[in-house]
């Protein structure tokens, strides 16, 4: 599956998603600047992304823990998610995400 990731300078990166990896892990593995301070424990909100267009509604909805943790994220928008909580799977092929400002 492909992930289209927009960095903080507006540059698009085409990444290969790996089944079962989180989107945060794919972004970090590609060297993109997601801090992911807690390492994927839904405990820091530093892997905040925006999910573009219709892709947001195609995702499994955020857990209450993720909704709560987004309270600690900056510049939250209606399509905000924590990338450590989105798991790569074939149905997400082509998903577009934008790394939130820090």
């Amino acid at each position, binding site marked *: 599956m492909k992930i289209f990731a927009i960095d903080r300078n507006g540059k698009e990166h085409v990444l290969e998603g790996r089944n079962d990896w989180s989107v945060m892990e794919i972004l970090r593995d590609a060297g993109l600047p997601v801090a992911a*301070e*807690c390492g994927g424990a839904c405990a820091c*909100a530093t892997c905040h992304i925006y999910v573009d267009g219709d892709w947001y509604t195609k995702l499994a909805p955020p857990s209450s823990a993720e909704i709560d943790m*987004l*309270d*600690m994220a*900056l*510049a*939250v928008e209606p399509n905000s998610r924590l990338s450590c909580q989105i798991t790569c799977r074939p149905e997400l092929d082509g998903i577009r995400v934008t790394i939130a400002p820090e």
Partner: protein
Amino acid sequence: MAIETDVAIVGAGPIGLFAVFELGLLDLKAELVDILDRPGGQCTELYPEKPIYDIPGLPIVTGQELTDRLGEQIKPFHAGFHFGQMASALERLPDGRWKLSTDAGTEIVAPVVVIAAGAGSFVPKRPPIAGIDAYEGKSVHYAVRRMEAFRDKDIVIAGGGDSALDWTINLAPLARSLTLVHHRDGFRAAQHSVNRMRELAGEGRIAFHVASVKALHGGDGQLEAVTLAGADRKEWRHPCDAFLPFFGLTIKLGPIAEFGLNLHEDLIPVDTARFESATPGIFAIGDINTYPGKLKLILCGFHEAALMAQAAFHTCRPNEKLRFQYTTSSSSLHRKLGVA
């Protein structure tokens, strides 16, 4: 007056704490500095309740429990703790020792400094609003040091966690007006705080908007208004003279970058026999160091602390012979541990 000791440790996370133990077995005293107000570092700040499964011998332990147990383990060694302070400068003294200074004025003089700072210092998250730095410390504050400073002010608080709610409740009686903004009508804070905030809003003593701060207006560091944007993206100007964003903490490397340690991508390169940096007497253990094969795991940091202590002994006690002993069998170690 500077505190003189054997080892100054920057960071009281799990690795800094365990370093106290390994140093203590060798009769080396330690003083620790941490910007947080309690020990544990990321373990207690980020995931106190989350279970950790890869600590040898502890099949499951939370970040808080691990910190508490380390605290118990190092109790016999009476380390000095300097919490709520950022290690701000490191200077070599004419006698070859190091002087570590903090932003609170503490000075620690020691032949060995151990950087166990993880990814750096926990500092408040700064909202990505253009020009916010010009207001910081004057009319934008990330903490309330003195409530009186906010008397008769028109205050805007942003955030949905306990700090945002607590300060909304505590500052409401002093403020001329207080407006809380949050991106949703739901909060990560304690329920009784949420209830109290809603009461205050119901009584008209504060205002709550589902909104976010988009821009700041004012001059010379003094805010005059903020631009708020609601859920419908409609924007309006809200007059105010203080803005308090509460979005928790994030990690920034901070002054360690200025310590002259030849950092590589914000990490301190060390040799794996001593865990010493290229600067003699300065060691680095835990997530802050790098070497071929490095893994950022707590258990690796423990190993690094043990080897560091052996090397640090020779720097601190150049004329003494290091006696390697096991805690199972050594009566002198038993006396140090208070179990003899």
